[in-house]
């Protein structure tokens, strides 16, 4: 039964890929939606079977066939459902289904075969993502890992005629490959060390060890794996692809670049919790990278003007939060945030998609404003999403964020806790800045003129679809398919957090992380204090946004002008792309072209070969000249030779 979960969307992919050009939009959309919904249904069924099992043996295994055998390496195409993957398949197939449904309306302006192509990719993505989270060993996970990367590449570059889109797709793939480089080495080292690639067997072997006090093999394995995670989950230093990935259609951003694929790195750490728990030094690195990424992305998110880029940096920031949780050993909290984040970030992206759809492709916040009157469903669901991510008490994000922050605090990492809190403040500010700029105030089309002087070329890119911006007169709110997805996700964003009541989720997930989940002494009074601090922070952030972006935008501009240099640095995303280009991309290119190819290859290596050939040719030419045909010359040389030989013998 487990096999059906990834297989159903794969069949959907095959149908749309083979016959997509010949069937109508309705048919290809229906096939894709049916495939993912069926997969969701099977997932629910499988999870209910899992829950029915006794707590200490909650795992369903399905072995399809032996994939690769070579010496002691024996890897099966094996799927395993345990509590952790149960959470993941529900998120992937559940939110995936909503986004499929949403897409049927969002992509409706595409031609028949483009529409089918879109849905075939989306189904293929779901298949690989489900394989990733169900895989029982590193290699099956890696198939999914690379497969989702491929789909991400294809979907980011879906509008392939646009240079920026195909560039962004390629960048995503290559940056991910850099991460994979570390990941593969980590897998190899894990195999050499533990003699297996099966997660359970590795965990079993690792559990017998004591945590490494110095940086040893397990630390190296986990650090290499984490390099893979920084690629897939867009953490420092490999986060640069994710903001560019916003070139893809917005539902893709919601599904792949917010709710599911980018969380694969977090999931991978959760999957190898036992291993990571034995490498405290790696965990510290994970926590620091996570916190630093969260803060950095949050600051960039404050000033971006493209609605999707704000959300993209927000995603990077929230992923950093999840890694922070993993890094302090609070695996349950990290996965909890992964799960709640999937709801509200998908909601926010789909909401922004509804805005972009209504405005026929406009993505620049400065060209928006006052949309709440025209787009009530979008507005209210978006506000719920914003409140959820900001951490307003009672909503999903509040619970998961609070759990992370208190785990960090009680784990003894006060500085990281402060960074997390500051990020939470930033989150509230930039989210409500977005809300106020897009939905409140008045819509103005000329604001851009003076502000765009700050705009770097990278962010002032063109819109989702080729139509010119519409006037504000006849805007349509989300059509039914889109509204449905928004409303369901809004409900989720409100209530999803309640699964953690009484520690239910933590308890449910525990077998997947056991036996190494770190337990910290929790002080009940302090816990309440922290919760209050978190709530106050969220509220403060919203109030700051209210003041600067609702009441007095001139004040906001004033701050931007006062700190003009800082503002510019943030607008340009700390110039990381430029730095990479100058220090890595260009040097490699120049060295390859001008030194390796044109000098080493053409002049030195090939020159030597051709030179050898010419030398032989020249010698032959010289020898040819000796053959003069003159008998006297021949006789002379014979005589000369005889003398030389005689002389040699005599002299010897």
């Amino acid at each position, binding site marked *: 039964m487990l096999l059906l979960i990834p297989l159903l969307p794969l069949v959907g992919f095959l149908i749309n890929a083979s016959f997509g050009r010949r069937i109508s939009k309705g048919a290809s959309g229906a096939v894709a939606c049916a495939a993912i919904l069926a997969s969701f249904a099977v997932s629910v069924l499988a999870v209910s079977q899992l829950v029915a099992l006794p707590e200490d043996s909650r795992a369903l295994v399905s072995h399809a066939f032996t994939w*690769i055998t*070579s010496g002691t390496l024996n890897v099966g195409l094996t799927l395993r459902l345990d509590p952790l993957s149960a959470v993941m398949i529900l998120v992937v197939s559940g939110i995936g289904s909503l986004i499929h449904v949403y897409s049927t309306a969002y992509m409706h302006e595409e031609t028949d075969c483009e529409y089918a192509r879109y849905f075939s990719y989306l189904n293929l993505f779901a298949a690989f993502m489900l394989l990733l989270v169900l895989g029982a060993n590193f290699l099956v996970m890696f198939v999914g890992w690379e497969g989702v990367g491929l789909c991400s590449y294809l979907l980011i570059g879906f509008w392939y005629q646009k240079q920026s889109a195909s560039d962004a797709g390629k960048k995503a793939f290559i940056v991910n490959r850099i991460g994979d480089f570390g990941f593969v080495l980590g897998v190899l080292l894990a195999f050499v060390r533990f003699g297996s690639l099966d997660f359970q067997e590795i965990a079993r072997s690792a559990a017998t060890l004591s945590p490494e006090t110095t940086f040893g093999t397990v630390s190296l394995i986990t650090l290499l794996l984490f390099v893979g995670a920084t690629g897939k989950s867009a953490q420092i230093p490999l986060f640069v692809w994710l903001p560019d990935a916003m070139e893809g259609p917005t539902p893709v951003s919601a599904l792949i670049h917010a709710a599911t694929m980018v969380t694969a790195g977090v999931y991978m750490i959760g999957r190898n919790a036992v291993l990571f728990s034995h490498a405290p030094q790696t965990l510290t690195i994970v926590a620091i990278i996570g916190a630093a990424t969260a803060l950095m992305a949050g600051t960039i998110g404050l000033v971006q003007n493209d609605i999707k880029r704000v959300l993209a940096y927000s995603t990077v920031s929230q992923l950093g939060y999840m890694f922070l949780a993993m890094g302090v050993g609070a695996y349950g909290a990290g996965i909890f945030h992964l799960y709640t984040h999937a709801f509200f970030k998908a909601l926010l992206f789909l909401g922004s998609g509804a805005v972009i759809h209504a405005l026929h492709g406009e993505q620049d916040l400065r060209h928006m404003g006052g949309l709440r009157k025209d787009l009530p469903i979008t507005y209210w669901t978006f506000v719920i999403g914003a409140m959820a991510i900001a951490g307003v008490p009672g909503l999903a994000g509040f619970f998961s964020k609070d759990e992370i922050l208190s785990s960090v605090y009680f784990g003894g990492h006060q500085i990281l806790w402060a960074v997390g809190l500051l990020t939470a403040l930033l989150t509230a500010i930039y989210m409500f800045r977005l809300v106020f700029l897009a939905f409140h105030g008045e819509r103005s089309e000329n604001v851009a003129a003076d502000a765009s002087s700050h705009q770097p070329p990278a962010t002032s890119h063109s819109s989702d679809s080729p139509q010119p911006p519409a006037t504000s007169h006849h805007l349509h709110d989300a059509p039914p398919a889109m509204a449905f997805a928004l409303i369901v996700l809004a409900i989720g964003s409100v209530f999803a957090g309640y699964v953690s009541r009484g520690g239910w989720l933590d308890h449910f997930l525990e077998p997947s992380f056991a036996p190494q989940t770190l337990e910290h002494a929790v002080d009940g009074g302090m816990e309440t204090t922290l919760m209050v601090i978190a709530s106050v922070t969220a509220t403060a952030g919203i109030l700051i946004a209210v003041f600067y972006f609702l009441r007095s935008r001139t004040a906001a501009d004033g701050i931007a002008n006062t700190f003009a240099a800082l503002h510019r640095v943030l607008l340009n995303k700390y110039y990381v792309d430029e730095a990479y280009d100058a220090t890595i991309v260009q040097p490699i290119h120049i060295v390859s072209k001008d030194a390796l190819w044109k000098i080493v290859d053409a002049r030195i290596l090939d020159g030597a070969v051709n030179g050898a050939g010419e030398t032989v040719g020249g010698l032959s030419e010289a020898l040819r000249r000796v053959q003069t045909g003159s008998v006297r010359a021949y006789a002379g040389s014979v005589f000369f030779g005889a003398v030389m030989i005689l002389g040699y013998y005599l002299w010897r």
Partner: protein
Amino acid sequence: MSFPILTSLVALPIVGAVLLLFVRARPGDDGEQTARMTRRIALVVSALVFVETLLLWARFNPASADFQFVERHAWIPSFGISYAVGVDGISLFLLVLTGFLTPIALLSSWESVHTQTKAFCMFVLLLESAMMGVFVSLDLFLFYVFWDAMLVPMYFLIGIWGYDRRIYAAIKFMLYTMAGSVLMLLAILGLAVLHYNATGSYSFDLLKMYALNVPRPVQFWFFLAFGLAFAIKVPLFPFHTWLPDAHVEAPTAGSVILAGVLLKMGTYGLLRFAFPLFPQAAEFFAPALAVLAVVGIIYGALVAMVQPDMKKLVAYSSVSHLGFVVLGLTAMNTQGVQGAVYQMLNHGVSTGGLFLIVGMLSDRRHTRLIAEFGGLKKVMPHLVAVFLIVTLSSIGLPGLNGFVGEFLILLGAFRWDPTLAAFAATGVILSATYMLWMFQRVNYGTVTNEKNAHLPDLRPREWFVIVPIIAVAILMGVLPNLFLAPIAPSVEKLLNQFHQSTTTRIEAKAGAVGRVLSDPADRRVRKDPPYVESAR
């Protein structure tokens, strides 16, 4: 006596070539009819050969490590030269690959070869015969005959039906390869003399040579002689510069066979001859070879990245991919060697596929410059779709063939020397970079060149050419054990013999590692890395 299937594999293409001699123009024919007839006969013959290789696979005993279907006939008894052929797990799939790619190569040049079609088809068939001969030879002299015989048809294929600088490329190919093989001939004769000194009779029999105790200093010289011939053929950095020229100038069929099969001769030779005949020398030179291989992986990829010509790009990517194969071989452990053999097949399929696609584009536009293209996806969606799949297979996407080979090689190399493996693994990043960059420039964006606006999509014949490649790429990615299982016993046997003959120093080290890895055949680890210590 059972049916001599291996001999028939060698002979059938020759028979086909002879048959073509009798195809004559009927009165009133403009030549086109004859050409069509010729192509059909050649295709049918090569298809029959392919079916025969499949039969061979079906009847091959996958549990046996020994040579099967062995035939022996005295040829020049006074020198101990015999016609001895046989097949084991290492050569089995190389035969199948040859059988698979030859009809595809013929079909790929169905329309692009206009002149002297008969001669073209004959050369392709003769080439096939010689390639089969190389893979089945169990006699060094016989092997050498086939080895050099291969050069002749390839020389003409490049020189007659190639592109503008075809004469230069053909001569360079010929001379470069000959220069390497002359030394190998000397070493082969030297082995025969050694055999005479030891037993009183000459022999060129490979199996007898395996048993021969070659003195250590002699091993070094002979290994270098064999090694140079094979390194040029691979081609191993820095002996690779003939390859881009040969590939760029060769017609599509030539490139497909050159990349698909001929490049495997070098690595096959290392595995079949150089390593087992001179194990101590191999042991000594393996690190140097491995370093050259890794340099080739990175260097080939970097140079591929900046090529303006698609064919040249694919040619340099071959240098990179073959570097992986050599790295796997030099690791001399189960995963490394099995991965290397597997990667030889993968490279034949993936790079063969890439050359086919580049050939389709250049048939349409008569250029291979990347800058001349752009936006093809809009114009030729099907061709671009298959292009994508072949590209992904080439960059080792899991689920397709390339990944299995690369992973096994990296694993084997990692167990031997993690540092080398780590450097080699950067090839995984670089291959994605150059392939996807080319793919983007050719297929994405808008059509900027008017000449590309109305190119026809895949024709039925082209579907026939490319679909088998894709099917095999998927099959080898999803069910690799279908291929790995018959390869395994022969590889194990070879490794056992190899490690018995190498120094006891290695044996002593293997004890420690063997306990951890509990795999008697995977014993070769050069240094004890820290993780071995902590496991105990």
